[in-house]
């Protein structure tokens, strides 16, 4: 029988359609072939991007916007929101509007065109996480911005338009609805129990050991109790932290270890699966929040959103998270066994 499950933070319902249950190999990933050709993100083509706002790895004294970088952040050439101007908040009767002010940046994660984020060298992945931190800290200096959304689209089906490994940041003058809902949900729980709900989730998941995918000293990956898609995963810091930007280099190194392992487990279950990851962190200009807990959400693109989902806000998921976690835990073990002669 199908099961309705409620996300304890957002109150969002999902349907686990168990009679549709599938094995990882039943999910077909039909990615369009990559045609290749000139890449505007590759070294040597820096003149095709707007001037960089951050670059790591270039030898000391080398000019900006020249090759030699390891990670490079540039403004989006055709941004969804523009950096120059005032917000000019206005009311039009009962409707609210303002100018489309924001910052839209592209994080070029590697100079190597063929690099895949999941398989990157760990030290290099740390540079990417440091770039996220540096850009959040810099954008926080702008009083117009309330939130920095960090996300990655991997694969055409998940919205990636270019195969060169990259992620994006958008600084917004308003809090996204999703974050507002998370802040409200976590605050309600905190007011009732005087504990962070995510800390409680971590404690319970470690105790139950049914939805834990992997963990290290500082981070844990779980399949959430009410996931929107098969193999949805959350990566959370074990200790209570509300802001990603406060993480030190040691924490980011541990994050790279678990992130890499998590994505490799996913890829071992469903090779080449397209996915999105999104950072959920505290709003800009806010102090450490006792009720909120920063984390990454990784959402594989394996199901489609249609009329029922749009109308109800429910998601139908054919893979219970307990089964997904089992597959993910066994993934690399199986890979190692199969690799044996």
């Amino acid at each position: 029988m199908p099961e309705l499950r409620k996300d304890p933070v957002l109150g969002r319902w999902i349907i686990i359609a168990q009679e549709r249950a599938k094995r990882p190999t039943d999910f077909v990933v039909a990615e369009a072939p990559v045609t290749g050709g000139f890449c505007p993100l590759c070294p040597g083509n820096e003149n095709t991007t707007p001037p960089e706002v951050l670059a790591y790895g270039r030898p000391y004294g080398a000019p900006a916007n020249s090759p030699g970088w390891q990670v490079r952040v540039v403004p989006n050439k055709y941004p969804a929101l523009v950096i120059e101007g005032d917000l000019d908040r206005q009311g039009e009767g009962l409707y609210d509007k303002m100018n489309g002010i924001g910052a839209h940046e592209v994080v070029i994660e590697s100079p190597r065109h063929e690099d895949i984020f999941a398989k990157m060298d760990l030290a290099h992945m740390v540079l990417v996480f440091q770039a996220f931190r540096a850009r959040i800290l810099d954008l926080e200096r702008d009083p117009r911005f309330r939130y920095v959304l960090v996300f990655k689209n991997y694969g055409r089906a998940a919205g990636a338009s270019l195969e060169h490994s990259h992620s994006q940041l958008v600084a917004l003058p308003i809090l996204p609805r999703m974050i507002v809902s998370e802040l409200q949900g976590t605050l309600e729980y905190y007011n009732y129990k005087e504990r962070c709900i995510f800390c409680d989730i971590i404690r319970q998941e470690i105790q139950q050991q049914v939805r834990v995918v992997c963990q290290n000293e500082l981070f844990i990956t779980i399949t959430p109790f009410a996931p929107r898609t098969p193999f949805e995963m959350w990566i959370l810091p074990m200790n209570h932290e509300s802001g990603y930007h406060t993480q030190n280099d040691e924490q980011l190194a541990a994050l790279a270890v678990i992130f890499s392992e998590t994505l490799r487990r996913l890829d071992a279950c469903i090779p080449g699966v397209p996915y999105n990851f999104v950072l959920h962190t505290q709003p800009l200009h806010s102090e450490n929040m006792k009720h909120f807990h920063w984390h990454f959400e990784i959402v594989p693109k394996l199901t489609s959103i249609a009329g029922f989902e749009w109308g109800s806000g429910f998601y139908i998921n054919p893979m219970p998270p307990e089964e997904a976690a089992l597959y993910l835990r066994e993934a690399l073990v199986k890979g190692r066994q199969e690799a044996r002669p």
Partner: protein
Amino acid sequence: MKKILLVDDEEGIQLLYQEEFQDEGYEVVSAFTGEEALEKFKSETPDLVILDIQMPGMNGIEVLRQMKMIAPQLPIILSTAYHEYTQDLSAWASDEFIVKSPDLQHLKEAVRKHLG
């Protein structure tokens, strides 16, 4: 005389642009598909390309990336009815991105900017 390679699958656009750019003093060579565009790009050695995106077969973004592999410095103007292609990072390889309009002023200015 500077030569423009005009790539668009719509005959009406081809006729209009040819007339307008010939009046501006340019030689115009036409291609109706991406594949034909790549052939003429090599055989006609144009000074600038005006490139549509949505075409049957190879689309303009794929053509752009192939052309820039061959001649990275040659100016290519993407000319499309669909603004949403700005979200495709491959479009960054173009020198200009122009949304098609009955008023060709922006397109003409872009061509003049690159061809002098």
